[in-house]
């Protein structure tokens, strides 16, 4: 029960007796004598600890149930089982404020109507009539449309009911005001978080030279939300995740989803390459339709590269598994994608490149999420199940030897190692940590 409702209940109860009671000189309701005989048989409401009347309290307590709170509160609940609507809260200042807000909204709506009329007028005029020609006409119309969008948000932004509905998660994302609220909430934390991850994991410039996310992408493995950048157990990331992509601009669009591993070790080149783990195109996305379970994408027209569980070999540093959502400007040929990325690397067969796929198919990256993968207890089994090679090798740091020349052993013992000092060998050989019977331990030490 919301706070305002609980506050309103006693008042509402008063109102229920006489819904509208203007200022009068007659005695108040409480002063009026009402003679209702007390009930003798408990009604169903009297068996409920929330609504029990004072006369049935004892019976209920004997039954082992404690009536809640105060009698006044119980009466209030009894009178309004569904609660009083928020808009009808009987506070005078509240109602007056609502009137002001309503007037403001009317004003905004009038402004919207006026701007729309202006747009219609501009559109009807010929481009020659404008000083700058068609370009100027387009600019003016676009700026007016932007202003209309601002007004639409301004019209509703002060409405407490709208705000409450958004906070309860009941906002309709087709309406600009709820999208505005959603974007504001995203920018307040999640956007900052994801941009920080992009920076600290060097997504820019390793994967893309420039990137600014404009949509909220949440990642779910086994119905569990994962934080961006978390290290995920290879067993958990074996099945494909579900994405929740919340966009903040209207309209339906087609998107491409690319999942890639940015840290595949390449021993021959002594460096790293990239490999794609999942590519799907032509996925419809709109503000209201935000859930994309990658495992459910099976259509031939959509799925280009099926999910490959991310794994990392023993000893290799963590792998950054980046998930990109890219906007298409039209339907894509998934089969061409499939052919090109069948080997998960691309045509040149060296390294997958998001840049090239972006440029070739004219895609615009707008959503991003990331998780990491390291070698763990389950990795070998996962690799075995999916035929991924490399579970039997481990990486160890390549030894870099010092550039200094090795020094000859020095000291009394070192001098007396030769056969000339045979009589001293009992002192100069087999010194713990220095020499053994066969060799001088420190001689070759670098």
């Amino acid at each position, binding site marked *: 029960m919301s706070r305002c409702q609980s506050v309103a209940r006693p008042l509402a109860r008063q109102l229920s007796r006489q819904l509208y009671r203007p200022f009068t000189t007659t005695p108040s309701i409480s002063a009026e004598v009402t003679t209702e005989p007390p009930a003798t048989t408990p009604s169903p409401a009297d068996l409920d600890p929330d609504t029990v009347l004072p006369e049935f309290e004892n019976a209920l307590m004997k039954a082992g149930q404690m009536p809640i709170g105060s009698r006044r509160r119980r009466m209030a609940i009894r009178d309004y089982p569904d609660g009083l609507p928020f808009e009808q809260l009987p506070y005078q200042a509240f109602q007056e404020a609502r009137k002001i807000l309503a007037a403001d909204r009317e004003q905004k709506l009038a402004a919207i109507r006026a701007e729309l009329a202006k747009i219609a007028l501009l559109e009807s005029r010929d481009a020659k009539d404008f000083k700058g020609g068609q370009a100027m006409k387009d600019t003016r119309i676009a700026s007016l449309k932007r202003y209309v969008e601002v007004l639409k948000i301004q019209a509703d932004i002060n409405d407490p009911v709208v705000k409450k509905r958004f906070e309860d998660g009941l906002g309709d994302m087709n309406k600009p005001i709820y999208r505005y609220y959603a974007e504001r909430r995203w920018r307040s934390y999640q956007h900052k978080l994801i941009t920080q991850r992009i920076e600290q994991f*060097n997504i*820019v*410039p*390793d994967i893309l*030279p*420039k990137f600014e996310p404009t949509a909220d992408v949440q990642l779910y493995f086994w119905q569990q939300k994962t934080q961006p950048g978390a290290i995920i157990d290879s067993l958990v990331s074996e099945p494909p995740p579900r994405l929740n992509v919340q966009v903040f601009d209207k309209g339906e669009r087609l998107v491409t989803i690319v999942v890639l591993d940015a840290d595949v*070790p*390449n*021993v021959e080149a*002594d*460096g*790293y390459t990239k490999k794609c783990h999942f590519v799907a195109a032509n996925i419809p996305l709109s503000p209201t339709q935000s859930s994309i379970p990658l495992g459910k994408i099976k259509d031939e027209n959509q799925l280009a590269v099926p999910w490959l569980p991310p794994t990392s070999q*023993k*000893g*290799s540093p963590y792998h950054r598994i980046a998930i990109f959502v890219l906007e298409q400007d039209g339907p894509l040929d998934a089969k061409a994608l499939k052919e090109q990325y069948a080997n998960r690397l691309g045509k040149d067969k060296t390294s997958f490149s998001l840049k090239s796929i972006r440029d070739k198919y004219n895609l615009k990256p707008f959503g991003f999420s990331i998780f990491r993968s390291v070698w763990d207890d389950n990795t070998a089994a996962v690799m075995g199940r999916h035929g991924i090679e490399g579970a*039997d*090798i*481990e*990486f*160890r*740091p*390549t030894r*870099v*030897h*010092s*550039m200094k020349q090795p020094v000859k052993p020095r000291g009394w013992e070192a001098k007396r190692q030769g056969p000339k000092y045979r009589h001293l060998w009992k002192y100069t050989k087999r010194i713990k940590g220095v020499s053994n019977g066969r060799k001088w331990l420190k001689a070759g030490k670098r």
Partner: protein
Amino acid sequence: MEASCTSIFTRQVQSTTLCRSTLAMRFLTMQRPLVAAAGSFFQSATSRTVPIAAQAALGNAALVQGVRYASVKSQGAYKKKSKRGIPKKLGAKRTGDQYVIPGNIIYKQRGTLWWPGENCIMGRDFSIHAMATGYVKYYRDPQRHPDRKYIGVTFNKDDVLPYPQHAERRRRLGLTAYPIKPTVEEPEISPSGIPYQVNRVVKGEPDRLLRLRKDYSYREDNWRIGQLVKTTGLRTKRFRTRKQYFRYRAWRREREKIGQAKSAVKRAAMGEDPNTVKGRPLSKKQQKAAKKKQKAKK
């Protein structure tokens, strides 16, 4: 030279010390044959002005002739070349384009004359270390910082730092692949017929794994004993790193300062100090003005 000496004498300088020092200096620069003559002249000249006792103290053919005895020399003040301390051996240890390996010190410095750039890190004493094998480059990177000078290490000698800002990072794997050794399963029972390991179970304590030793005793592994500390929840050190401690100390000092300022305000509020206004000390100008005011009142 002669002329200047005589001019001093004609002025009848009474201060013996001044005369001694100036004369000594001058005579030291003289050539030997001249010294004897001047000495006799000097003696005759001073005998007129300086009392006999002082003459003995002044004494000094030895000084005049520029001889320092061992007792004086051993004090060291003459010999030691002043203002020359122990060398700190700072500066560049590797030049540009020189080959380095991880851990090599490239530059030693007090403070940050140079900053660590590509593949370099800065040590606790601000020395710049290489983190990869490659070639040293000294460079500036205005995109990163307008004023700082950086030292970096590139993998190729021809590379120029800084790298383009939006280009992919150049990274080296630096790892070698080895086959994973299969773990050999140890038999449970030793050839002697007793188990290799037993579990010690004590109520209220974590179970301990005791292993068979060469001397047929059962004892816990040392590394396992070390792990026991973790189960107690004890914290031996308050700070994991030095840096964390310094950060904490700076924060604490800052807070102390704020607290002191606050308490000064409070003290001032309790009993007003004449040299403060609203808890802040008066400036010198204000103090002067206040004094003037008081005088005018009187």
